[in-house]
């Protein structure tokens, strides 16, 4: 039996290149193709979600209502979040996972290639369903991405479409996560033991567990919204014995791990990039792994810190406050470890490193405000103001998004064999790093001064900082077109200089992917590699 398979294998892998034409992308099972699809889709959605953010910031540029109706404004805040979370950040990291995990662990492909293809197309289907609501009677959902009842039940024709979109996105994420777990557990090169895996692989393994545990929870919650609206159930209706707050508990049981789904792979990429440019092994590899696991565990038991003002029994308030504060410990360990990795390194500052350092600094700022909000009594002031908007954007934009950029610059030369334009890329970095702070830092002030979130218009004392923030938003938004240009240029040939196999100086010490030729061949590791980079562990 195995002889037959081996022969088959031979045909498959050594003689078979990609399909011709557009069909290649529809029916592909190649992890690199699917990774590319995910990344391009995420990039497109990044601009769609970004355009929505600019509608928001344009309306908030000045007090008074200038451009859109309040209802449409609410649709924009809702859709911006949903598109960015489910269409941009998550798929981008899945794209990295698809490209990098098999390369990093020495596997020929993902464990379940056909399902891999399905994960991607289900994602597209889900986002299409979601986007279709923009053109519906009554408009797109306008109740915030959290879809709280009873407000969300007032949504027009869009409601069932948004709910089914969540179902499809859930199917996509669960299948993607299962694939990643099976790949990591089952496809590693013989010498690649668990504690020798690159941290990016580790963080994705843990993220995949989170996804499998939480996406069904979200699916269940929105299913109850559907039945409450269309089938007379009373889950979130007090008159029938239900409770609108129950939805919030379920949502945040999903929602808190969900935000870690976006940040854990971020940690992984940063832990991969920083040692390369510090020319030093990652400090505290095993403590990084344990810290990631600890953060993932904690994410399941802190959800109600999103709901301190909702009216919980005092024991609940206190418990969730203490549990939330604990997150600072493993997160701190990570930040200290990255700092220690840089310490006494021999650093150079290519664009991936610049974005990574900006990530460490600005994510730490987001972490500080996180700690502040963990204190329940103070959160009674911060909650649902621009302070929280500033907080989570700091943990998502100059953290997750910056690291996605860093990863893009870091691996694109490997994937394409072409070098990006370093000068332009550095310009892109500085534009982004400065404008992102102009955009989000003033929002701390706005929140503290009393400006609630999700409002289309505000009192005049908030005018100045809103204007500053909007200016930052437009600079940041348009700077990203530069990123698009650099990426396209790199794919099309870059600077013309062909990159070496290891691309970055001594990168081969840091990971298996740098031992492969550049650009990476269509099929890699048909036989598992004999040696793995060990000197760093």
């Amino acid at each position, binding site marked *: 039996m195995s002889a037959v398979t081996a022969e088959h294998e031979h045909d498959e892998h050594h003689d078979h290149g990609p399909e011709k034409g557009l069909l290649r992308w529809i029916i592909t*099972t190649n992890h690199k193709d699917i990774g590319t699809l995910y990344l391009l889709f995420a990039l497109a959605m990044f601009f769609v979600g970004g355009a929505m953010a600019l509608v928001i910031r344009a309306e908030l540029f000045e007090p008074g209502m200038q451009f859109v109706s309040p209802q449409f404004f609410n649709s924009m805040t809702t859709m911006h979040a949903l598109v960015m979370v489910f269409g941009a950040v998550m798929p981008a990291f899945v794209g990295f996972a698809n490209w990098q995990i098999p390369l990093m662990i020495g596997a020929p492909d993902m464990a379940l290639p056909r399902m891999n*293809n399905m994960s991607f197309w289900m994602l597209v289907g889900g986002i299409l369903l979601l986007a279709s609501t923009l053109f519906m009677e009554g408009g797109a959902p306008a109740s915030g991405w959290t879809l709280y009842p009873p407000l969300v039940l007032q949504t027009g024709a869009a409601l069932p479409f948004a709910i089914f979109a969540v179902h*499809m996105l859930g199917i996509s994420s669960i299948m993607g996560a299962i694939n990643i777990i099976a790949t990591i*557990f089952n496809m590693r090169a*013989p010498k690649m033991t668990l504690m020798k895996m690159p941290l990016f692989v580790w963080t994705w393994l843990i993220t995949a567990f989170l996804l499998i*545990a939480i996406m069904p*929870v979200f699916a269940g919650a929105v299913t109850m919204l559907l039945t409450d609206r269309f089938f007379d159930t*009373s889950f979130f209706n*007090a008159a029938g014995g239900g409770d609108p707050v129950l939805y919030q508990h379920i949502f945040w049981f999903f929602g808190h791990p969900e935000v870690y789904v976006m940040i854990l792979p971020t940690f992984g990429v940063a832990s991969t990039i920083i040692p390369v440019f510090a020319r030093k092994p990652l400090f505290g590899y095993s403590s990084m792994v344990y810290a990631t696991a600890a953060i993932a565990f904690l994410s399941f038991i802190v959800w109600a810190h999103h709901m301190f003002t909702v009216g919980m029994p*005092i024991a609940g308030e206190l418990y969730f406050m203490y549990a939330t504060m604990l997150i600072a410990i493993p997160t701190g360990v990570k930040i200290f470890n990255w700092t220690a990795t840089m310490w006494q390194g021999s650093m150079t500052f290519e664009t991936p490193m610049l974005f990574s350092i900006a990530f460490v600094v600005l994510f730490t700022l987001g972490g500080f405000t996180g700690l502040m909000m963990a204190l329940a009594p103070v959160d009674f002031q911060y909650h649902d103001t621009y302070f929280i908007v500033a907080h989570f954007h700091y943990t998502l934009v100059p953290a997750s998004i910056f690291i996605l950029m860093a990863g893009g610059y870091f691996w694109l030369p490997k994937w394409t064999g072409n070098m990006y334009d370093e000068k332009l890329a550095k310009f892109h970095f500085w534009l982004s790093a400065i404008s992102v702070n102009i955009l989000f830092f003033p929002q701390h002030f706005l929140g503290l001064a009393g400006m609630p979130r999700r409002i289309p218009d505000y009192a005049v004392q908030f005018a100045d900082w809103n204007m500053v923030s909007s200016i930052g938003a437009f600079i940041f938004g348009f700077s990203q077109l530069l990123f698009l240009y650099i990426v396209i240029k790199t794919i099309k040939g870059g600077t013309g200089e062909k990159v070496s196999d290891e691309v970055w100086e001594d990168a081969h010490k840091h990971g298996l992917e740098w031992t492969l030729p550049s650009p990476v061949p269509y099929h890699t590791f048909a036989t598992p590699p004999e040696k793995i980079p060990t000197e760093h562990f």
Partner: protein
Amino acid sequence: MMSTQGAYYIPHKATWPIAATIGLMTLLAGFANYLNGNAAGSTFMLIGLSIFIIMIGGWFTLQATESETGMYNKGVGISYRMAMMWFIFSEIMFFAVFFGTLWYTRNLSVDWLASVGDGPGRSSGMLWPSFESVWPTNGPGNVGGEYEPMGAFGLPLLNTLILLTSGVTCTWAHHGLIEKNRSQLIKGLAATVILGFIFVAFQAIEYQEAYHEMGLTLGSGIYGSTFFMLTGFHGFHVCVGAIILTVVLFRSSKGHFTPENHFAFEAAAWYWHFVDVVWLGLFIFVYMM
């Protein structure tokens, strides 16, 4: 890791996933339109469902053929088993939501509405002065009108015995497969499938009774909502499990599966046991307590 990893089968194209997506999207968009009162919705649902069923048939046939022609080595089998395990875990989480809902409403929100306990319970009862915390309840608004709660010791108990027995017959069939006793395999599977469908039929009778004689509907406040949501989703999973087992039965009768290579059988059996265990939870928390 795997000594035979070099022979791990990697398909080079997949035509069914895109069909799955188109089918599911059509089905869901159709359903959404139907819910919004669009007459065309149900047509689209049918089209989507047909595409989806054809896809399932096609994809599973492809997998079965590949498996029977020996294209899957041990490594592939391990991947499939992991995938099934984690899929079942995600299903457990899905049911956990509804069990959690039952727990929360029963122990917290119904109490609070009757001004029992701390937090919102300190004064919410003011809004509902005559409401008392009892279970089952359709809430202080008497939503859905008078109803009779579902007892545990009629059909539900019988159904528990049926499902437990089907678990035993399923394991017996597995033993048959491992001991190369094909007739035991087929008999065991047939018995499991038949018991599964009897369970579903009894469940249907129970629902009939609830709706037409007891006044208990999905709209009977939180009790009706949790009761039908939990038992309904479980019933749906029993149907799916029984259909999978039917396919496995059909394949067994065609001589598929060997003691070493029978992932489809194992997956179906795991799924069936999962459905079994969920039912036990239901019987205890929904019917008995």
